């Protein structure tokens, strides 16, 4: 087990290192950042001045090393737009994003798992078809548009819920639904497929033959094994939710890091963009790493 963890840890570190290089170079090489910062109509002399001011005239690898050394000290730089420290900006806004992602994941799981289990007990029945159809719809609905529709119906027409902000739980309801729907389909399909396979296995037949209560077989014995792949997918989905929050936070004007990133992109505030990029990537890598650990713990065969 220790060797397995060590090896996976090494791979994860390597991936994080590469992601930091890729993210950094993408932002620096895809255009003349100094020209963007200097604004329209800037003379070459202005651009050179801006480049010098922000250290953009130094060789790329030096800029990168500087940035990484700062990262390791917990210094993410300063926002070019507001002058605040980037670490502070992220720290004050990460709560909203994490809350939204957690709520959405929970909502997705709460709908998807029972639906997957029920669908698996009667494959090809109307119930199963209905569940699959729901998954197809969930996959096809554009999240931002669904958000707008929710705003229109529940916020404007019915006036049940607030349509923007992130200050109390009521403001989280609509965004949670809009985001949760996007992760429901994959978890539902996975639960269903896993349950179908497990339910046809010998030990479940033995449990049935032994006369155990059907519900206890379904949820206690079968689901425990079928849920294995769901654990890792849920972790990965949580990582995707962090990246996907850019859209939903913009639609509902929620002050999380997604909206922060979007505004920073609009202002060419690259220290902020870079920091959030690396933050989300590292979050994803850490979550997949944890998912593998959990899986390896639950299923000893993986450790081989």
């Amino acid at each position, binding site marked *: 087990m220790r060797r397995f963890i060590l090896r996976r840890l090494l791979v994860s570190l390597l991936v994080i290192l590469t992601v930091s290089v890729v993210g950094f170079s993408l932002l620096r090489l895809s255009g003349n950042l100094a020209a963007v910062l200097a604004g329209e109509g800037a003379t070459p002399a202005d651009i050179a001045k801006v480049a010098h001011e922000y250290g953009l005239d130094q060789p790329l690898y030096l800029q990168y090393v500087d940035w990484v050394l700062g990262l390791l000290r917990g210094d993410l730089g300063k926002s070019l737009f507001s002058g605040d420290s980037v670490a502070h900006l992220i720290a004050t806004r990460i709560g909203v994003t994490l809350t939204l992602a957690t709520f959405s994941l929970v909502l997705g799981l709460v709908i998807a798992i029972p639906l997957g289990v029920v669908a698996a007990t009667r494959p090809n029945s109307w119930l199963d078809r209905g569940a699959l159809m729901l998954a197809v719809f969930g996959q096809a609905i554009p999240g931002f548009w669904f958000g707008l529709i929710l705003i229109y119906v529940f916020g404007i027409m019915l006036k049940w819920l607030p349509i923007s902000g992130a200050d109390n739980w009521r403001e989280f309801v609509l965004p949670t639904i809009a985001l949760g729907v996007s992760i429901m389909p994959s978890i539902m399909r996975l639960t269903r497929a896993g349950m179908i396979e497990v339910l046809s296995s010998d030990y479940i037949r033995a449990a049935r033959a032994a006369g155990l209560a059907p519900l206890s077989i379904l949820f206690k014995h079968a689901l425990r094994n079928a849920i294995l792949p769901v654990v890792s997918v849920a972790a990965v989905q949580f990582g995707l939710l962090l990246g996907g929050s850019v859209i939903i936070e913009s639609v509902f004007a929620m002050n999380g890091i997604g909206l922060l990133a979007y505004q920073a992109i609009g202002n060419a505030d690259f220290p902020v963009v870079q920091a959030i*990029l690396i933050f989300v990537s590292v979050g994803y890598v850490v979550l997949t790493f944890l998912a593998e650990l959990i899986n390896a713990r639950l299923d000893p065969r993986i450790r081989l």
Partner: protein
Amino acid sequence: MTAVLDTAPAAVLAPTPRRVMLRRARSHVGLLVGGAVVLFVLLVALLAPWIAPYGPYQQDLLKRLADPVWAAGGSWAHPLGTDALGRDLLSRMIWGARISLTIAIVASVIAATIGTLIGLVGGYFGGRVDAVATWLINVKLALPIILIALAVIAIVSPSVTLLVLILGFLTWDRYALVTRSLTQQMKHREFVLAAEAAGASSLYVMLREILPNLRDQIIVLVTLEVAILILIEAALSFLGLGVPPPIPSWGSIIADGRGLMFYKPFLMVVPGLAIFVLVTAINLFGDGIRDVTAPEGRA
């Protein structure tokens, strides 16, 4: 005819794979319905210059925000109404289908090419080469697509070409994962070993022996990825960093209508519904192809 068939030897009666596929396809509701919708939208996109009643940029400032035909005061002159600049929504939807589909399809082809190559090479050679392929895939998976696309497009300035390239380079991971694992399974099969024993080069074996056998799976993936790309393109265009205005894409039309959603909701509802219906249809169609082309007994 039946008499002849009845006396034919069993081998002749055994249905060919093509026959099996056709037979399955004919009774697959999802495939048929999804396929019909996809075909319809493809035709609309192809024929846009001829069937759109107005030009996509043609403004009629006297007829701004005309209601659609189903609302009171609507008329068949503008069946879906007009937007804030007096542009005909139906015409912009038709041209938007062309833009959205072109972006999604070209980007998928780029992604499929990159992903398939990485997966093939990694899966076939194994060892260190595979370690590099796996590392590339892991790095790609860790990169947040929307965030990177937004940042790069904002720096370079939005254009359709840039959007296609960015999306192509950010969505190849699924092809790589699938191709890699299929190649790993396939490289020990007899026909591959036979080609290797006959002295075929690695390149030949990968491209001529293994790749043709992955065709069905890759086609299914391309279909499903086109659906995902339509959604991503719509989201980026909605956020104002996808297709630059005034070019219509279904996402940018929603963005145009957003500011007026309390007053003229149809401007936002119609393009969103179109995306929803098309993506549903593509997914049903893709799942259908997978069912139909699956080996016997797995459908």
